[in-house]
């Protein structure tokens, strides 16, 4: 039976290091299968998050050969197996153990975004009327499985550690889903500019590239939101009006 070597990040008392494990290959195998195999036979305490194993829950995010990926959707047939496959945790978040990181910051950030605020219902039975064409773009963002790979790859967070003033691509997509919802009535544009730091994004498109749900985060969410910020705060006519009003 053919086998491959997996070079997996393990943490111990004194920090972390890669350890090599050899795994027998089975047709159609994904990286998460290999990790499970190692867990069941060689390292029962190997820590890894996973749930659905079908790319729907966004739990098994990791960096495979340096690329942010879902382990359950990365087939071994797409990787060069003549050399070890490296599997390490998302590096933009504090490590907990082995492949598991502390992603709690994301849950805190979400709480700071004004929740869905619907306008009064359109019909007496408390329902709204929306056209499919008008909700298509919202549904694209709502495909997000919160794997946080976009947060992991974003240099504003990963390299510049601006977690206190920048909410990251995941939450721009979340904000866009709310702002573009045809029946939402709140305005999140001032917060985008001030507390949520959308200006720090210089549209390098890394988030869009790694999104396992193929959400076009940069073009469809971030850029339109940036345009709204510009319209509201930097449009010369509106600015002038604001001066007069104050």
């Amino acid at each position: 039976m053919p086998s491959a070597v997996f070079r997996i990040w393990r943490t111990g008392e004194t920090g972390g290091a890669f350890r090599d494990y050899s795994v027998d290959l089975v047709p159609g195998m994904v990286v998460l299968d290999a990790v499970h195999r190692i867990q069941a036979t060689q390292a029962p305490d190997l820590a890894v998050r996973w749930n659905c194993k079908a790319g729907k829950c966004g739990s098994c995010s990791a960096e495979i050969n340096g690329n942010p990926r879902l382990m359950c959707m990365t087939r071994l047939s797409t990787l060069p197996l003549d050399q070890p496959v490296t599997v390490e945790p998302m590096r933009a978040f504090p490590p907990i153990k082995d492949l598991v990181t502390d992603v709690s910051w994301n849950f805190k950030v979400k709480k700071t975004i004004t929740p869905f605020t619907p306008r009064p219902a359109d019909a007496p039975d408390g329902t709204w009327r929306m056209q499919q064409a008008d909700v298509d773009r919202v549904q694209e963002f709502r495909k997000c499985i919160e794997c946080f790979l976009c947060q992991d790859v974003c240099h504003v967070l990963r390299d510049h550690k601006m977690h206190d003033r920048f909410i990251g691509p995941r939450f721009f997509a979340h904000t866009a889903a709310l702002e573009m919802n045809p029946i939402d009535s709140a305005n999140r544009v001032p917060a985008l500019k001030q507390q949520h730091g959308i200006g720090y994004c210089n549209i390098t498109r890394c988030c869009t590239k790694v999104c396992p749900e193929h959400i076009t985060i940069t073009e469809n969410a971030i850029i339109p939101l940036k345009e709204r910020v510009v319209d509201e705060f930097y449009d010369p006519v509106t600015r002038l009006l604001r001066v007069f009003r104050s």
Partner: protein
Amino acid sequence: MQIETFEYDVLVIGAGGAGLRAALEASAAGVSVGLICKSLLGKAHTVMAEGGVAAALANVDDRDSWKVHFADTMRGGQYVNNWRMAELHAKEAPDRVRELEAWGAVFDRTADGRILQRNFGGHRYPRLAHVGDRTGLELIRTLQDQGVHRGMDVHMEFTVVRVLTSGGRASGVVGYERERGRFKLFKAAAIVLATGGAGRAYRITSNSWEGTGDGHSLAYQAGAELMDMEFIQFHPTGMIWPPSVQGILVTEGVRGEGGVLLNSQGRRFMFDSIPENYRSQTATDEDEGWRYTQGDKSARRPPELLTRDHVARCIMREVKEGRGSPRGGVFLDIAWIKSRLPNAEEHIKRKLPSMYHQFKELADIDITKEPMEVGPTTHYIMGGVRVDADTQMSTVPGLFAAGECAAGINGANRLGGNSLSDLLVFGKRAGEYAAEFAKANKRVAVGEADVNAATEDALKPFEHAQSGGENPYAIQSALQDMMQSLVGIVRTETEMQKALAELKALRARAAQASVTGHREYNPGWHTALDLRHLLTVSEAITRSAIERKESRGGHFRDDYPEKAAEFGTFNIVTRKAPDGSMEVRRVPLPPMPAELKQIIEDQE
């Protein structure tokens, strides 16, 4: 031992759809609420639900009503459902769906801008509100985003090891947080179990690692009763190739959109065996079936949309009789619709995006061009904690259960789409009545000795490491193989008696399970503790299945292949006897009011 302690009026265990909905409702009632999740928030198994949520909104077909939904649910469950739960479910589901929209869910739309509904197995009219094939994600995200703004405390990656009782009442829970491996005590006036299913007792399953029957087993150990445990739903269409994806679900939505099941001879074998009680509702030819999936109100549904238990057995038959696909399943073909529809490829990608994605990435199959290979997979357990229909309280005062871990609504077989509506309707009710219970009844004291006993017991796998105990993964794997082969889709007395003997042996092995390493984020430890739940649930399934000497819904016996009227008059209930053994008894079905009987007759 001093351990960190939290106190709540209502404590909810499980943060899938039912748990979140219960926590929301309890919060709205003004009591303090704690919510425990085994994984991160938003990752629960609800996220996997694909097809939709069943509710008689009548947006697509105005002939639909709660009465039709009620009758469909009872017929699908082969009339051993709790009629009151089926009634409440059918009546309240539409409001539960509409309120999701008010909380930000964005469903697919009809041409006039209302919530779109799709066809599904066993539902007479198009009834499933949906978002493509990722409805569960929409539902859980909507509830989660509402929840975090309602002031409930969320404890993520926390595993409950015991539900405590004092003087016969639920008083709290003991468990540990995974990150540091530290024990915590939660005291609560009311506890809601919303822990989902137990599919991990089987080798081939659509369930994630979390589906280990925790709530079933915790309730059982705390003195509550389990009901209908023999009824397991084997979903007819799971992926079968490649081996690493075996069991992953292929939504019934594929068949709802016109997908057909074919054997190796290219025959639509579902036309060969249409049960008598569904004949008048089923299409007589392929053309009528196709027209039904495209919304023709004068057409009847294709046989692929018969109930899941029946379709799964037909697939097994084809395979057994040598007409299966090369890898031991049958073919599911949606690509054929290109002969009927212009832009079929775009249509499939739009209606079934995650199925397209799943097959493309995991199996190198383009479902818009070629058929899928599918076979049955353990998907859902109809059985669960026996609860009061209106309040969802178990036989232990203060202990509630909702969603998959509760029994009653589904009877012998659940209709697709009825689980998302179940968890909304009864999640809400559990939260509401748990809050009411907490307001009327103060917390009862937790026995310190019980807490110590629970933590000591949970640490035993570490002690066994010194004495050289067994790897818990190996025991779990042996259990899964045993249940799959001896208490699977087709059952016999001899095999199930053998299963009981094997369970005894596995229990002895599990008692010696050992773990290496320390307590911090240790999946081996977790697996050792999960094993106990899986063993309890497996025993309840096996004993109940032995007791039901007939075939009905998700329970099929080769030695009693027919349905027996006598067995349609009671449910099978298990509970822990005073000597610690599992007691099995037959409990008569509550009598159904005449007006509901009439509704069922009218819908025949």
